[in-house]
């Protein structure tokens, strides 16, 4: 039974946490791709920026959450989302729009977004410093220990407060996005534009509005992902930058341009990572007697060491690109 708890803690919960973060990040990347047709590398730093805004706001308004019984960071998250959305629209106006107006190739926009990455990271470092900081400025992180109602289950299932919020918010965000894309005029226009921008415009759709809306959604989602990640661990200026690879892997696995695919891809990559570094020897312990000796003697039976975790999304990416180049959901269009 303790093995099961160990599995839940280290795979189910840990995988869902990274999966949710990757999913929210990948949805933003995929939406930007489907509307503007370029890979937005500054997405990780937009996530960090969102978390940074939350850090600033919680420092400025300590105790904001106490009245509602939730962490201040969570109460101030909508404000941070709005600020990040504003930043995203601003970056587009200042850097990407002039490039698009010149009709450049997508690769130029990609390089431009690398420049934005460096700029954003530098700015955040300049103001936030390089060390890790907790987003729990004025309150304490709750940790829930749930004992399983089974005999012999001594270790509890451990889940932290930000992880619970992460699951709930991911679910709400995905459902909200689904309704938006399928049940609203702007969502319908977005789908049309991702299919054929010229025809969309000739059918009366204001493509500038759609671009702005895309940035607002991507920016808002980035702020959610960055903040919840920083709540779970700590805020660092380069925290989300290192998630860029798994996020892009998730977007590609799901089929670039396909938001549901991005969600699925996020969880595929998240779980693949945690399963790959999971120590299977623990799970084999109950069957020790019936297994060959060479299998049970080793104390560590993980597929890859924790320090090589980053190769997992790479590996998935290569497999998907060889096996199904358009992703599991056949992307390109919303």
């Amino acid at each position, binding site marked *: 039974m303790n093995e099961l708890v160990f599995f839940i803690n280290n795979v189910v919960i840990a995988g869902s946490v990274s999966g949710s973060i990757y999913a929210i990040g990948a949805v933003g990347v995929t939406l930007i791709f489907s509307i503007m047709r370029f890979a937005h590398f500054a997405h990780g730093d937009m996530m960090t920026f969102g978390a940074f805004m939350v850090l600033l706001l919680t420092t400025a308004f300590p105790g904001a959450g106490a009245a509602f019984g939730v962490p201040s960071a969570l109460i101030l998250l909508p404000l941070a989302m709005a600020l990040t959305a504003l930043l995203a629209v601003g970056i587009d106006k200042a850097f990407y729009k002039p490039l698009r107006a010149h009709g450049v190739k997508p690769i130029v926009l990609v390089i431009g977004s690398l420049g934005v990455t460096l700029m954003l990271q530098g700015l955040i470092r300049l103001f936030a410093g390089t060390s890790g900081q907790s987003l729990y400025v004025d309150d304490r992180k709750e940790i829930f220990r749930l004992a399983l109602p089974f005999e012999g289950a001594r270790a509890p299932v451990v889940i932290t407060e930000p992880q619970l919020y992460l699951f709930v918010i991911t679910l709400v965000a995905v459902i909200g996005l689904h*309704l*938006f894309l399928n*049940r*609203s*005029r702007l969502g*319908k226009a977005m789908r*049309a534009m991702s*299919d*054929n921008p*010229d*025809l969309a*415009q*000739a*059918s*009366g*759709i*204001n*493509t*500038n509005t759609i671009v702005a809306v895309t940035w607002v959604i991507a920016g808002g989602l980035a702020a959610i992902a960055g903040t919840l990640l920083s709540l779970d661990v700590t805020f660092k200026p380069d925290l989300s930058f290192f998630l860029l690879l798994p996020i892009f892997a998730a977007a590609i696995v799901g089929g670039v341009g396909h938001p549901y695919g991005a969600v699925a891809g996020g969880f595929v990559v998240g779980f693949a990572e945690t399963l790959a570094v999971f120590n299977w020897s623990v799970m084999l312990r109950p069957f020790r007697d019936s297994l060959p000796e060479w299998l049970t003697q080793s104390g560590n039976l993980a597929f890859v060491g924790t320090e090589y975790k980053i190769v997992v999304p790479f590996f998935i990416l290569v497999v998907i690109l060889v096996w199904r180049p358009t992703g599991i959901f056949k992307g390109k*269009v919303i």
Partner: protein
Amino acid sequence: MAAIIDVQHVNKAFGGLKVINDCSIQVEQGSITGLIGPNGAGKSTLFNIIAGSLPLDSGQVLLDGEDITNRPANELFHKGLLRTFQIAHEFSHMTALENLMMVPPAQAGETLFNAWLKPSLVSRQEDEVRRRALEVIDFIGLHHVRNELAGNLSGGQKKLLELGRTMMTDARVVLLDEIAAGVNRTLLGDLVTNIERLNREMGYTFLVIEHDMDMIARLCDPVIVLAQGSVMVEGSIEEIQNNPQVIEAYFGAAS
């Protein structure tokens, strides 16, 4: 009759290549005006300028007296100026029927509020749009492929779908860019009949680019001949066909 489209002294160059050269044309309200000319005469460029897909260098475009110079295509759509594309455009991931249903603006189902709280209104309106789309799809002879993804249709069928789109809304002016290219002969006859009917019954004004002279002869009056970026001659098809300048432009100087 008043000119619904009035293009005044428009110039457009791509790099050093002057494509439209002080070009002025008028399209009369209620007419089916043809726009012909040899390859590279600037017909499509002029179309793109009128339709708001391409910025012009100098000059002015008026729609029913209103200045629409350099207005984006989406604004012109709402003012009743529609276009089709020379290379047929479609929403490839929607079915042919959905492509048509996409067109009418401001449908009730497009807001979350209505979608949830007024389902009867939404479904009633959607039924109406669907009925109209089905009528149009019958009209353009694509009934048998209505549930196919538009991306899988043939080139000619996509062209018909383009014409169908213009019938889904109350247009004032429709710019048809080589609508007949790639459409078979029998369908072509239907197409001409449909365009005439839209013109007569719905009051659509058409500006038509076409290489098919039979179609121009059947459909268009007046016809404008464009050469090297400006108007060479304008008149009825008989006048055009007997004009030595036109013959020279098309077939080269008689040596």
